[in-house]
């Protein structure tokens, strides 16, 4: 059990940036998910912690030791690889036993057997122990890889997109199992994924990374509702968040009038929002709002106008894409019972109570409007 500290980690592969100036702290027994698109630097980060690659700059501490000079074998870190990296010439049992037989551990045969069987049973692969790796399905291989990491009881677990090669149904059930296992084992874990649902549901905290740099670290709620930058806001949520440029026309203490989406409209604000808006360099601001919060209505409350561009029924919900007056597209998530016709005029409104304000030049988070409890 150990905490992890990364400070200023930098690794370049020739000209290509792996990670740059990554600093992160993971508490003892914390489950941190690292989220980012492909090529963001997630695997590089894991490889640095594991010791598989050495950083150009920066330092890593696990527990109270600085591990920079330690070989991977000496760091007491276990990793589940995206490709599983199972030993092809061994059976399931031999794969799981391999770490315990290494010079580092050198456990007596009896204890090896005990541990392997214990975890094989926990992962429900105990009936496969004598099978060769080639004969396993993807899900079974994944569990074997997990088992190989678990038998060692390391200080730290590193998981590199362990669920990405499983079909959707299996992924769901494995996610639930992982959460339960987490509770039982209580080991510090860093879990890397490009699936934001996994990032949100599994992690105590989420670290958002892109192009080798950490964009934000926080709880799932923080990252979703108070994204540090426009980029972070765009990475979470499907359909993607709506982002619009707005020009502030006039402002009172409790409301503000803007020109956006080709129209003039106003919405209420709090003094807190007001003072945040004071800090803007000009009168432009970037507004973000989630598709689920857009109200599409024919009942007069709506204040903005547009034309239906596309309508995708997806079951309980449907995705509606609207061409606003100015031409910019707005996505809305509507109830599945409603239908819309393409090219029809439509009215919609932007939720004043769930707006995120961004500084348009720095793309950084400014402030957000709040809503009463009990909603959503």
């Amino acid at each position, binding site marked *: 059990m150990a905490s992890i500290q990364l400070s200023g980690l930098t690794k370049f592969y020739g000209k290509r940036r792996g990670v740059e100036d990554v600093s*992160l702290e993971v508490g003892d027994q914390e489950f941190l998910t690292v989220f980012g698109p492909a090529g963001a630097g997630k695997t590089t980060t894991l490889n640095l912690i594991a010791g598989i690659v050495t950083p150009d700059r920066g330092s890593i501490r696990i527990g109270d030791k600085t591990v920079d000079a330690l070989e991977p074998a000496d760091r007491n870190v276990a990793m589940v690889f995206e490709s599983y990296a199972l030993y092809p010439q061994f059976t399931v049992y031999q794969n799981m036993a391999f770490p315990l037989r290494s010079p580092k551990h050198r456990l007596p045969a009896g204890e090896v057997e005990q541990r392997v069987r214990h975890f094989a049973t926990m992962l429900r692969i105990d009936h496969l122990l004598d099978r060769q790796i080639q004969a396993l399905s993807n899900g079974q291989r994944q569990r074997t890889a997990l088992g190989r990491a678990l038998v060692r009881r390391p200080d730290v677990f590193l998981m590199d997109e362990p669920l990405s090669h499983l079909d959707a149904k299996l992924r769901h059930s494995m996610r639930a199992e992982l959460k339960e296992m987490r509770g039982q084992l209580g080991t510090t874990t860093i879990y890397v994924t490009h699936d934001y649902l996994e990032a*949100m549901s599994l992690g105590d905290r989420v670290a958002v990374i892109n192009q080798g740099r*950490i964009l934000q670290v926080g*709880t799932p*709620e923080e990252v979703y509702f108070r994204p540090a930058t426009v980029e972070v806001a765009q990475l979470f949520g499907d359909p993607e968040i709506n982002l619009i440029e707005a020009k502030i026309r006039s402002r009172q203490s409790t409301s503000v009038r803007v020109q956006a989406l080709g129209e003039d409209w106003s919405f209420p604000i709090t003094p807190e929002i007001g003072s945040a808006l004071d800090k803007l360099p000009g009168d432009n601001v970037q507004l973000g709002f989630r598709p689920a919060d857009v109200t599409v209505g024919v009942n007069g409350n709506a204040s903005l106008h547009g034309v239906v561009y596309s309508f995708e029924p997806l079951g309980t919900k449907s995705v509606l894409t609207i061409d606003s007056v100015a031409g910019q597209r707005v996505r809305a998530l509507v109830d599945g019972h409603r239908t819309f016709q393409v090219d029809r005029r439509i009215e919609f409104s932007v939720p004043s109570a769930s707006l995120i304000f961004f500084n348009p030049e720095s793309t950084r988070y400014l402030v957000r409007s709040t809503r009463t409890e009990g909603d959503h």
Partner: protein
Amino acid sequence: MFWGREPALSITEVWNAPMSTTLSSPRTPPSELPRGGSASKDSIAHARRRRFRPYLVLAPALILTIGIFIPFIAAICLSFTDYSLNSSDVSFIGFDNYLSMLQSSDFWHSLWITIEYAFLCTAVEMLLGVGVALLLNDENIVARFLRIVLIFPLMIAPVIGTLIWKLITNPSVGILVGPMRMIGLGDFKWAASPDSAMFSLVVVDAWVYTPFVIILVLAGLRSLPKSPYEAALIDGGSPWFVFKNLTLPMLAPVLLITLVFRLMLSLQEFSIIFALTEGGPGDATMSLSLQAYNRAFPFYGLAEAIPMMLFLWALVYFVSFILIGFWRRAQQRAAGVA
């Protein structure tokens, strides 16, 4: 509910909480964190050790490689002397060896023979090899059997193969005597006559090395992707059209690499020629390698022989350089087609 998970704080508390920073959410005050950007002394030493590992592992091979360079350097040095195997004094004579080589008709004759031999062998083997490979890309009985046994001529030492052909064409006991007489070539002298010596050489070389072409081209044919052919089937197109515009471009890399190998090796072929004709009769098949051998060993003129070989090597290098360029481009094009 938030995706089935109970939030740790109430929603309003979250909204109103101070925003998490974009770097770390430090639980220790920044002054206590180790300074980012610096690395400990241990880790620097460790990183350096890791960087030298490849060289350590390569060391034995590198030593051997350097060991191999020594003869080359020695050869170059020797070529500037008049070193001879039957005299004890050596003196530096500059470029004399090179000049006399360029002026000797023997050299140009050998150069011509070398090029002729390499060209004929490669052409015959490529054409024959591709043809047989196409025939073998089939599932009939003969093809399946042949695929396994055609390797034999290649595996046998070229010299042994030459030996066998000498036995076959031997006027007294050779099996071909009868059939040749039947087709009116009863006087065909094979390797004994200057007119037919080159022909005999090419036959032997083709016998030994055509399997090489076949194996590589066949492997190339079998690894071609299916989908372009399925598309062509739908779009229509004669077999020859498909062959010319689909198969050949995709096969080009394999064909070129095979061509490179065969050309390079046949330019400097020695064993087969030595075993069959020793460069004769006369100098009808005196390739550069044979000429160099003759100068050096029976006639002791070691230093004279070297410039010829250096010339040959330069020729081989130059041709391979150009052809490898073609090969790379063909690979890129093939990747585009498929």
